[in-house]
């Protein structure tokens, strides 16, 4: 469960969401995330990318994630 620093309700991460959060311990691109999680879950990178993009968007909107150059 994560909460943005300024507003919004808590976001509950489950299953692959938890793995995604753990993988976010260092800056990386969405493609890199998709590839590493695909390997972990024995799935295609394209399918994982489709799954994680909405979650990343939600976390970004909540202010939990921020883009880095």
């Amino acid at each position: 469960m994560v909460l943005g620093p300024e507003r919004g309700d808590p976001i509950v991460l489950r299953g692959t969401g938890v793995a995604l959060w753990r993988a976010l311990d260092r800056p990386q691109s969405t493609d890199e995330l998709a590839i590493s999680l695909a390997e972990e879950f024995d799935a295609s990178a394209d399918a994982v990318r489709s799954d994680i993009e909405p979650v990343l968007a939600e976390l970004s909107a909540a202010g939990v994630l921020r883009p880095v150059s």
Partner: protein
Amino acid sequence: VTGSGPTDIPRRIAGYGLPGTTPAFPQDVLDDETWDGMLAAVTRERVTGHLVLAIHDGAFPATEDQHAACVDARERALALSLMLERLLLTTVAQLDSMKIPTRVLRGPAVAHTVYPDPGLRSFGDVDLLVGERHL
């Protein structure tokens, strides 16, 4: 931690995971009525995190439905704790900017300094100490 009746379970659950403690839990799954009463007490005492941990470890027997109910209760408690922590951080930052010193007491302070996982220690309010001359 002493006691062996169902009404004492919340206290035993609160001690679960503490070094040197081996709380005695029921050997069999509780019937629904007993479980509901126990979960209500565990929720009231804000130790749902410990109960979820005990169930996950296999130390406390529970059905899938009981486990799910406990996880739900813990998530509600965590959500409240997180919202309170955010309010606390915002308040402390505002007071800091006004050069007003503060001390965080009890729940959030204990959760982050005493517990291995702060999510184990939920709380329903926050206590902030402010010097009398700043009131």
